[in-house]
């Protein structure tokens, strides 16, 4: 301001605050109030542009403006598999394209969405919290009662809630501002809780998507294995056979025994023929031998050849058994892939971890009253200076 004062005095006779001292020295008598009024008359521009707005700003920032309470929490969205890709270096390498920390950004977008606001508003009645008459008229939601639509509330809400995601640590900071400590805490806690819900929902959907195919495979394999096993047992039941291989072994042993006997009988017959050709025993033995031969043939037919033989049954039996084994292997494979899918889901599971819980503020950190007043003073002086210099610049063009 000194500069302007100097310029003014040298160039044009526009009264400025700097000129005050001289007047005071020359005239001593008038009262303080009179002096003030005289001063105001002499410096209309200064009064209008600086003094009055300054007084208003002191009034507003110092007395009227409501306390703002801030509740803050920090959280991180984690995924076990994902690596930390982001540092400033890699960020600058592929400017803007890298979409790291997308999960945290998902949460941010959700928190700052109409969906989230709707639920929060239903539970906390934000219109009442932000629009109550305790809140000063400039900060209040819908101060004139003109527009209390949801869109207006949403716009207001975006000014009250911020989510910042740190790209290097991927820690998100959620802050909520309100005019009462409990409101700030409730909004913050509510949003955080809903964010957790969102993450769980995303996980559920991912799990469902990823597991549904594997689960279906397992179901199919299971049904097939059951069918095969059933078919085999039905066949066994029908043909009255338990284990064809073992059964045929038994039968072959029978044949073996019969054959041994047959050989013995034949030996006897030969002996009789040699030494007692007229013996009646020969006939009896021959009869026995033919019986045995018949028996052997019958037994052999059961094991092999003929439509009812064991080997015939074995063909069908082996086919069914093979089917069953295949279906069992298929089921085992399906179960393994299901297990793998489960593990995959587990690895891609998102976690929202609360690092710092939402706090209930015990004192208002905003507004910064003194700083605001100071800033208003500064700006008013600057604006005044600009206007003043421009005016002086114009007035220099005298005739």
């Amino acid at each position, binding site marked *: 301001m000194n500069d302007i004062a100097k*310029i003014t005095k040298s*160039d044009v006779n526009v009264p400025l605050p700097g000129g005050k001292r001289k007047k005071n020295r020359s005239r001593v008598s008038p009262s303080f109030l009179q002096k003030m009024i005289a001063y105001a008359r002499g410096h209309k521009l200064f009064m209008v542009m600086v003094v009055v707005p300054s007084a208003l700003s002191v009034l507003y920032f110092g007395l009227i403006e409501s306390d703002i309470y801030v509740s803050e929490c920090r959280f991180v969205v984690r995924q076990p598999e994902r690596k930390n890709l982001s540092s400033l270096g890699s960020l600058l390498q592929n400017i803007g394209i890298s979409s790291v920390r997308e999960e945290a950004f998902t949460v941010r977008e959700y928190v700052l969405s109409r969906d989230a606001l709707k639920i929060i508003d239903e539970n906390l009645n934000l219109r009442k919290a932000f629009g109550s008459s305790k809140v000063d008229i400039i900060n209040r939601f819908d101060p004139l009662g003109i527009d209390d639509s949801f869109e207006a509330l949403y716009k207001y809400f975006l000014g009250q809630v911020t989510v910042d995601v740190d*790209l*290097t640590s991927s820690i998100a900071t959620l802050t909520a501002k309100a005019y009462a400590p409990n409101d700030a805490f409730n909004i913050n806690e509510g949003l955080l809780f809903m964010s957790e819900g969102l993450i769980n929902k995303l996980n559920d959907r991912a799990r469902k998507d990823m597991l549904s195919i594997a689960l279906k495979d397992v179901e199919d394999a299971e049904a097939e294995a059951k069918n095969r096993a059933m078919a085999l047992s039905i066949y066994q039941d029908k043909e009255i056979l338990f284990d064809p291989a073992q059964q045929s072994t038994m039968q072959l042993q029978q044949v073996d025994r019969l054959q041994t006997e047959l050989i013995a009988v034949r030996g006897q017959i030969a002996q009789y023929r040699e030494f007692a050709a007229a013996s009646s025993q020969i006939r009896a033995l021959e009869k026995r031998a033919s019986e045995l031969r018949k028996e052997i043939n019958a037994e052999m037919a059961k094991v092999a050849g003929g439509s009812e033989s064991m080997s015939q049954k074995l063909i069908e039996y082996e086919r069914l058994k093979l089917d069953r084994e295949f279906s069992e292997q298929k089921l085992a494979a399906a179960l393994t892939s299901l297990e793998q899918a489960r593990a995959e889901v587990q690895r891609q599971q998102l976690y929202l971890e609360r690092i710092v819980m939402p706090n209930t503020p015990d004192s208002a950190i905003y507004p910064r009253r003194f700083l605001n007043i100071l800033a208003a003073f500064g700006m008013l002086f*600057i604006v005044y200076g*600009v206007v003043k210099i421009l005016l002086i*610049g114009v007035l220099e063009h005298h005739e």
Partner: protein
Amino acid sequence: MPETTQQTTFSRAFQIQMRVVSALLRRELIALSGKKGIGFLLMLVEPLIFVSAICVFFYLTRRTVGNVPVVAFAMSGYCVMWGCRFQMMKMMNVVAANRSLLYHRYVKIFDLMLGRSILQICSTSISFLMFAPIIYIGLVDFPVKPYLVVFSWLAVLWYGWSLGLITSSIYGLVKMGEKICIVIMVLHIWITGAFMMVEWLPPDYRGYYLLFPMVHATEMMRDGLFGNRVTAHYSVLYMVCANMVLTYLGLVLVRKLSQRGAMDDSD
């Protein structure tokens, strides 16, 4: 300086100033087109050539930045950058070049600067209007919030004007003035936010970057152009306040220069 005559009213003085400025403006135009046949035209399209060359370069190298068409991204950044820098560049030597005019009683240093800056505002705004044909041929979608684009452009012009006042005063006041001005101008390649968005920076460093007022203007313009496709960080209040402070600084420096000029004359 002649003695002050108090009879002149404010409106009369204002009339005189406007007359002086418009005469200066006409003089500049004639001087430009007189020198080289198409000088005036060249001056008007000079920033335009810069911006379109850059656009073509970016268009050929990369198609998108993030999810934003690169031409629009480059346009928004470079328009802001050249909007600031051209005013500084052209206003720098305005006093030195027109020193002889100051012998006229009515012509003041501030008038010289005003005339030159009005011309510059016109020429840079024409390059800014390049957006129109680009939008028309479909390289860039119509701005989501056109008013933000316009406001940010006005803020850029204001900022450039303030910086022009500052640099031209420094040029006249300080011996090393020219060097200082060049440093300031080179600095403005980086502090206007032409090449990147604040969102790409880690949150801890965003605050420092946002100290530069033109970063706000660039962000605001991109918010206007792309809407929800980008996350813009800016504060209109900060930008306006910073511009105000710079304007004040510039005007004070101009006063200093006028006084100095007066002293030089008397010597």
